[in-house]
């Protein structure tokens, strides 16, 4: 079985297509790390710079805002003009929409007033020099919420399709082996149960190895960007995202919760993969597999988006609570409950154990059926 796994892994990773795909992924990641360069034509930066030698930013910032890190100014006349003041290496004003000159001047004036107020007693001479210490950069940051929302939806959808795709990898491989007759050779050399296990392990290893490759690519891209400008440009860009992403979001995730969330998703994906393999093992050609895959994509997407829009109220529902422990449902419902702090670690563990037990039972009980299915040929 180990030989079969090694062989499949070599075939999967040491071929032209995989190498090209990974190069493309690396280019994409590199582009993401240089997104501020790529989108610079669309983003105007409006920053208020204050001389760092004069003031303690943090103190000043706390005075400016109720929030520790951000300060929001909303245009009362026009709700669109929301301004977020963020503490970075320098004061930076990030706006969701382009500011008119009047608003810009008002914000700068506000900042100046706070500085003067703060340091009136100790630095009473400051007011006469304030203009020298507080300068305005003529660029404007405009974060287009639609682009951000769109990007998030695209990233989520791509991730989900990738996951389903990896789930179908082994099934496709089995059908190819079936149609070119290699399966006959393999099954005269290896037991069907070992073949099944080998295929599951292979597709899962591929998934994990691909993630490791992507992490490596991320690190390399980060290193390249770090050598360029110590990521300062990117930092500004990321900060902008963080401010908006965390705005009004009270999600608290600690390490245990995160690990549990990942484990539940990973084992449920393993279960999905096992079910796909068992169902599709009786197919004899790619067309049958493609039809099944199409249905699977639609079905899983419906489940996915339904769960995405599940309200907190529904999460509190007792029926949903019980359903969330059922394997497959737990993949989407338990993470929701973890995020909303509606389940403790023990509950998550029970859910995880149920998934693992289902996987073991299916593997043991269905391996004979799998062999029968494998032997169905044209």
């Amino acid at each position, binding site marked *: 079985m180990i*030989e*079969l796994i090694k*062989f499949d892994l070599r075939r999967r990773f040491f071929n032209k297509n995989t190498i090209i795909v990974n190069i493309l992924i690396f280019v994409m990641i590199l582009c993401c790390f240089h997104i501020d360069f790529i989108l610079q034509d669309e983003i105007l930066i409006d920053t208020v710079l204050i001389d760092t030698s004069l003031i303690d930013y943090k103190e000043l910032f706390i005075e400016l805002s109720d929030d520790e890190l951000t300060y929001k100014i909303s245009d009362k006349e026009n709700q669109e003009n929301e301004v977020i003041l963020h503490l970075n290496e320098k004061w930076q004003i990030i706006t969701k929409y382009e500011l008119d000159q009047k608003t810009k001047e008002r914000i700068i004036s506000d900042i100046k007033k706070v500085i003067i107020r703060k340091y009136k007693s100790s630095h009473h001479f400051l007011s006469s020099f304030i203009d020298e210490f507080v300068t305005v950069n003529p660029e404007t940051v405009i974060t287009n919420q639609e682009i951000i929302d769109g990007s998030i939806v695209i990233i989520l959808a791509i991730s989900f399709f990738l996951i389903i795709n990896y789930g179908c990898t082994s099934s496709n491989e089995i059908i190819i082996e079936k149609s070119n007759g*290699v399966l*006959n*050779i*393999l099954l005269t050399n290896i037991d069907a149960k070992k073949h099944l296990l080998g295929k599951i392990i292979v597709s899962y290893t591929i998934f994990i190895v691909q993630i490791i490759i992507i992490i490596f690519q991320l690190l390399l891209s980060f290193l390249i960007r770090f050598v360029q400008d110590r990521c300062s440009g990117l930092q500004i860009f990321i900060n902008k995202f963080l401010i908006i992403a965390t705005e009004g979001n009270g999600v608290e995730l600690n390490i245990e919760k995160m690990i549990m969330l990942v484990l539940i998703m990973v084992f449920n994906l393993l279960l999905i993969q096992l079910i796909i393999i068992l169902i599709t093992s009786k197919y004899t050609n790619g067309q049958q597999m493609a039809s099944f895959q199409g249905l699977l994509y639609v079905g899983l997407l419906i489940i996915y988006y339904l769960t995405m829009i599940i309200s907190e109220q529904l999460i509190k529902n007792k029926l949903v609570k019980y359903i969330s422990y059922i394997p497959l449902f737990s993949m989407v419902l338990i993470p929701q409950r973890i995020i909303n702090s509606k389940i403790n670690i023990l509950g998550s563990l029970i859910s995880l154990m149920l998934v693992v037990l289902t996987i073991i039972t299916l593997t043991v009980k269905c391996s004979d059926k799998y062999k029968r299915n494998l*032997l169905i040929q044209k």
Partner: protein
Amino acid sequence: MLEVINLSKKYNEKEVLRNISFAVEKGTIISVLGKNGSGKTTLFKMILNLLEKDNGKVQFEKKNIEQHLIGYLPEQRSLYQDCTVYQHLKLITGINKIVNEDEKIDKWLHKMKLYEYKDKKVYTLSKGNQQKLALIVCLIKEPKIVVMDEPFTGLDYENIDIFLKEIKKLKKENKIVLISSHIYQPVNQICDRYIYLEKARIKLDIRKKDLIKENKKVIEINDKDYLYDEQILSKVSNDKMVRYIIKNNKAAQTIVERLIQENRTINYYGPLTIEDKIKQI
């Protein structure tokens, strides 16, 4: 000894094999013959445990057959086209935990004249070379039972000779070889026994030496309905030729002499072949 006991198989109510039974001793090459759809491949797959049996069993030395005992050369060239020759063989040797695998791979590649293609992808090989690779895949684990489904398809004479040499070697090594082939000539050279399948049953099960012992002769000429002799047991004809099966050697010689005197062209004169025997059925 390999024993096939009462094997039966139906595909959607269509009976493919009914109560097939035979036993094969070690060191025997057995040729399984039959028309297309007669159940040869089904029989092989049931022996290989690649197909569920509706009824019956297959045993080797009174035990169920284990995978490591069987080598299979399928009709279809069943190879990973995107892999190199070496990767392919490495997989098989690895699965079967063969010791000194690289040494064995090299030895087989040299023997099959494929060494120069060791690092080439399978799809770049000719059909003949792919078939030779499939033979190595079948034999490298040194199985005790070898099942070959149409092994000579797509091979030139030189490669057929290589295959025949290997099959003869298997016989010497006391192994059991089951072959199905539409190309009778090479099979006739090596096999010890014929099994002919028709309408889901064994219609003929005869040893080659018994066929020879029958001492019947065959004469093939071009002129249809030309000959008449009371020594002629039967004839098979088509638009171009006619084959006569003659009772014995002496009678055949007399007929041949007559034909020579009459200046007739004799296409074939020789012992009764398995094809003639089947046609007689």
